[in-house]
């Protein structure tokens, strides 16, 4: 005799509602709160909190850093994925580990390392000061920090797609006399384009939301090196909770857009 068990229907419902309740408590509930809190004092209050010059400047800086970091990481990600999948060379394992490192490393550690490298007492600090080049507490260090933390995404999306499509078409093209560049442009890139786009979306999200690494290297100069995420903290610390929520809402809306893009491109990647 089998032991009496819960009916399969009941069990399914218990599992389903446990999972959904967990998601509600951890994910959906808190997120709904940011909408409510932002508009608690009316639409106008939220709008004026968003349009102060410092906040506008912070958003501009975030977008600028993203606009520099994303193309860099896209090119790197594609070249790196091609090297990992299509080429043989010693030290591939080490390369893989280095590419994965930003996924597992604290952003503060990233920021600190850049601080130690480019700071006044750092390896390059003296030389940079002599030549009057500002890296730390300026755009270059913030870009470097952002590039570091968002490094793996394009590469990690493209690698499995490249493995899956195989290299038969590429070999055929080469046999027919196509140059390496032609093969890349006509065969390889079209086949991996949705993986690249998906990776770009993930990279963009990471760049827009970066906090820890940038917090260390930016110096947080209001109106100059303050990004949107740093601005959220600054507003909160200055007891302007309304302002903090308003900026957060914009960032959350961007995140939702990213999420929609992810869903769309993931489906394309699967059907392609």
């Amino acid at each position: 005799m089998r032991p009496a068990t819960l009916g399969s229907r009941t069990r399914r419902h218990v599992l389903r509602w446990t999972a959904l309740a967990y998601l509600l408590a951890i994910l959906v509930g808190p997120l709904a709160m940011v909408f409510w809190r932002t508009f608690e004092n009316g639409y106008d209050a939220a709008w004026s909190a968003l349009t102060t010059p410092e906040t506008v400047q912070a958003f501009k800086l975030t977008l600028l850093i993203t606009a520099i970091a994303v193309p860099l990481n896209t090119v790197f990600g594609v070249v790196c994925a091609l090297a990992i999948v299509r080429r043989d060379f010693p030290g591939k394992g080490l390369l893989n580990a280095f590419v994965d490192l930003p996924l597992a490393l604290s952003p503060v550690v990233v920021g600190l390392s850049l601080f130690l490298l480019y700071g006044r007492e750092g390896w390059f600090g003296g030389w940079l000061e002599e030549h009057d080049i500002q890296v730390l507490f300026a755009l270059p260090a913030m870009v470097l920090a952002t590039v570091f933390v968002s490094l793996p995404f394009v590469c990690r999306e493209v690698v499995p797609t490249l493995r899956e499509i195989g290299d038969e078409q590429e070999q055929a093209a080469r046999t027919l006399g196509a140059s390496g560049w032609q093969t890349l442009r006509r065969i390889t890139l079209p086949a991996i384009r949705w993986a690249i786009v998906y990776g770009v979306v993930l990279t963009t999200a990471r760049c827009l939301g970066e906090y820890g690494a940038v917090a260390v290297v930016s110096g947080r100069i209001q109106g100059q090196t303050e990004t949107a995420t740093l601005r959220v903290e600054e507003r909160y610390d200055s007891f302007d909770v309304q302002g903090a929520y308003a900026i957060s809402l914009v960032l959350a809306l961007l995140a939702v857009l990213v999420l929609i893009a992810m869903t769309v491109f993931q489906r394309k990647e699967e059907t392609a």
Partner: protein
Amino acid sequence: MSSIETLGRARPVRIPRETATALSLGFVVAFLSVVVALPMAALIWESTKEGSAGFWEVVTSPQSLAALKLSFGVSLVIAVINGITGTLIAWVLVRDEFRGKRVVNAIIDLPFALPTIVAGLVLLALYGPSSPIGVDVAFSRTAIVLALLFVTLPFVVRTVQPVLHELDREMEQAARSLGASEATIFRRIVLPNILPGILSGVALAFARAVGEIGSLVIISGSLPYKTEVASVYILSRVESGDRAGAAAIAVVLLVSSFLVILGIGVVRRLTTRHDVAQARA
């Protein structure tokens, strides 16, 4: 040969494949050196300046030890919780059918898309002093656990989901027809198959939790010895100008990150070997 040349169009300069390999590898290595390796080298260099005795003195000072213990302890808790809830959510998303499942599936990735500082703020809005449901855990260790559960939510779900999706259900049906209970089927058939997925998801969640800062700066309150995690402690060391102290703790985190990556690599290698063995059998 001549027929190709009479095509007339200027043919691009052919780069031999070996040269192309060297070029692309050169680019990858140069990029990684500037962005990753050089800063890491500067960090390790700074941490060794005071010698190994100085290093240990900094790492084992009461405040940094408390921060490290908190970070690793809480991250272990987070890893265990995620192993369970992540598997449950993945199971429901693959094996259950209900209205709105696609939306639920999409919002799983939200913590990846949402800036972590915003995550901290929204959690404070719901579970902080002005909580509308009367739960105030702000500036406590519970708040740290909540924030970390939020940011690590997708890892296990996203590593288990594809494996569960591919899993052949005939084995389970066979076991069921032979009289195995659902619990036995899960333990003996499903779990061994999805375990590598769970483990790599758990490892990623653990690494993420150890290094997390954005979602914690606001909601944890950063009280030394109580709610100050390692990454926040590093930030406060940097801000008070203690470079050596910050570097020493950072190196501890760096080593743990490398160990996690190595661990995931080992799990991956074991499972592929397992797959190969199965395919041969």
